[in-house]
């Protein structure tokens, strides 16, 4: 297509949505499967705390392999591709421009899934690199990087040839995320996943920098960029204050990037000190985002009915909570208690499953009917998905955070033996496993909606194909032409 033609003709949203149908089904479908895989692996890892002998005879399913495989399957398998799918749709809609090179993201989505399969399989057979959040072996890292670049080409092309020239705050966040991932992933992979490893404490420093930039900054950029698009759209009010949004964006990118080095890390003291300093300053973007959300959402007259609005609002609340937990675990006074406990795990899971996943679910439920041109097959199950996931996240994360504080206090007390200090957390772990189960059930409902919708669409395609074959010749040609146009 020639992007310069029809520049001044408004492009119907239906045409834009149609161009995104196949890429988004590919991205969302793969993401839904990996979410289930990740949550099942996470559940297996969780059960091992109640029954250590559970599946302990299978080397592939021992805790040391299942736990990182679960984290990576959720982050690389679900969060990133689903986030990219939402990003493509939002960028195309804001640009008033059908997706440029729509087949490229389809190829990339399949490539990405192969990368995640190799990576997760690699961890399970014991080929992990050992660096948290960068466990995928080299082959998987190369594939993921290439797939991301392909999607980025399509997204950047859509943005570059946009018909609506004015920029909206979501643009800043999403476009920054598009550049952020290739930068951090190539840097960390080249330094930690090749044969020219730097020696000594430089390795964990690079690992912490990467993990923070992916799990905190990248997810925040995509999640908040998405929320800033959908909240005003659903509430029918304009987004409150471009000044707040600009300041939130700049401070998030500037200070967020150097958080992540634990307060008592055995590296030269200026590194954790600078990191704690930056973590203190990230209170500013968190505060600004909370204010924007409150101003945009309140007084809109839209009540929460378990739909996309609910998902996204809940996601932003989780973002604020997880951000404050992140600051607390970086602050030297509180980190002394919280380090080496469940608290950090709780914060990460809140970031992944509470904040990011909830916003992506909400966005997907908003987008899917539009790109498919019809309602969801099971809208009631989507509502149930919200209550299952929101309840599941609360049950999963809150007990773990409390367990972390209790465990930290017990570890600080020299009169309590190490095993007893860890034993304190057991009753909390039992509740959190229930939460994991609820989140998994919700994810199954999400996958059900997507796959039934995809199958219905494929069935309709086959039907129209049969009809076209059966029809008299000239009409059939006309119909095929029409299909090509759509």
């Amino acid at each position, binding site marked *: 297509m020639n992007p310069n033609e029809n520049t001044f003709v408004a492009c119907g949203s239906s045409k834009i949505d149609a161009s995104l149908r196949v890429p988004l089904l590919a991205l969302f479908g793969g993401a839904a499967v990996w979410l289930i895989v990740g949550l099942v692996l996470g559940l297996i890892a969780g059960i091992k705390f109640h029954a250590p002998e559970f599946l302990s005879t299978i080397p592939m399913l021992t805790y040391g392999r299942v736990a990182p495989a679960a984290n990576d399957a959720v982050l690389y398998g679900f969060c990133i591709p689903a986030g990219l799918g939402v990003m493509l749709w939002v960028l195309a809609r804001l640009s008033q421009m059908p997706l440029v090179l729509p087949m490229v993201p389809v190829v990339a989505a399949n490539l990405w899934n192969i990368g995640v399969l190799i990576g997760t399989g690699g961890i399970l057979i014991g080929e992990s690199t050992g660096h948290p959040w960068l466990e995928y072996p080299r082959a998987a890292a190369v594939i993921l990087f290439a797939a991301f670049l392909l999607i980025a080409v399509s997204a950047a092309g859509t943005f570059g040839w946009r018909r609506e020239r004015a920029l909206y705050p979501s643009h800043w966040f999403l476009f920054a995320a598009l550049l952020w991932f290739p930068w951090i992933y190539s840097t960390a992979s080249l330094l930690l996943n090749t044969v020219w490893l730097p020696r000594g404490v430089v390795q964990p420093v690079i690992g912490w920098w990467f993990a923070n930039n992916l799990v905190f900054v990248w997810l925040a950029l995509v999640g908040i960029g998405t929320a800033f698009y959908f909240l005003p759209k659903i509430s029918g009010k304009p987004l409150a204050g*471009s*000044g707040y949004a600009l300041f939130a964006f700049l401070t998030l990118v500037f200070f967020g990037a150097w958080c992540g080095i634990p307060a008592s890390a055995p590296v030269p003291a200026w590194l954790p*000190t600078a990191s704690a300093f930056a973590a203190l300053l990230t209170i500013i973007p968190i505060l600004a985002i909370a204010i924007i959300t409150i101003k945009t959402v309140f007084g809109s007259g839209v009540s929460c009915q378990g739909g996309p609005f609910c998902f996204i609002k809940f996601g932003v609340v989780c973002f604020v909570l997880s951000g404050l937990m992140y600051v607390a675990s970086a602050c030297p006074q509180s980190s002394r208690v919280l380090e080496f406990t469940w608290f950090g795990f709780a914060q990460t899971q809140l970031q992944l499953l509470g904040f990011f996943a909830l916003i992506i679910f909400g966005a997907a439920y908003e987008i899917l009917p539009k790109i498919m041109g019809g309602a969801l097959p099971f809208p009631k199950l989507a509502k149930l998905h919200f209550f299952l996931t929101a309840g599941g996240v609360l049950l999963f994360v809150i007990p773990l955070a409390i367990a972390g504080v209790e465990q930290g206090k017990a570890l600080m007390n020299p009169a309590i033996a190490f095993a007893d200090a860890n034993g304190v957390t057991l009753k909390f772990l039992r509740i959190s496993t229930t939460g994991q189960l609820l989140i998994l059930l919700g994810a199954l409902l999400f996958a059900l909606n997507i796959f039934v919708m995809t199958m219905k669409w494929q069935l309709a395609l086959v039907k129209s194909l049969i009809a076209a074959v059966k029809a008299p010749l000239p009409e059939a040609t006309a119909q095929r032409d029409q299909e090509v146009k759509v």
Partner: protein
Amino acid sequence: MSDDISKRCCLANESEPTVTRSTVPMWIIVVTLVLLFFGGLYFDSHGDWGNQKLYKPFTSAEQLETFQPKSGAAAVMAQGRASYETVCGICHGSDGMGKPGQAPALAGSEWVTTKGVNRLAHIPLAGISGPLQVKGQNWNLAMAAMGAALPDENLAAALTYIRSSWGNQAGEVTADEVRNIRAAIGNSPPMLSREQLLALPE
């Protein structure tokens, strides 16, 4: 618009969200500057501006300095111990008790706790061979000039260390004393025998 998921609509031409134009509010800039100020104070007092040698829980090079042994007896003993354990302790043992058939004890040895340091300092500088009595035990071994390669300060510190450790309570050896003896015997002196050693002034 409602949040009912079953009523998601697919309008032909939906409007895209807009943003109210505003400047960055002053109060949030002020809060940022205040946090920057206190964060900066914390970084200044705890980070030591990129000092590669400073680790947590220490907060500055000056504080770290207070934990180092000062010049004087403690520093000499620390240096002496380090030199002793890399050079002498391998045979004589880090407890100074020696090893049977390999090296005599230094703890309580009459050759170590002499009044002067002349004879003692000759042993590591020149080496010793042949029959020797230590604490009433007969030895017949040879020790090369193991201390000749050490700088004067380090050898003096190591000798001070063996003269005041493991119950030994003899005086200090200075670097000048070692330097003078080294100058007197010259480069690569022959190993001494017990008789030659006893002929030297104590």
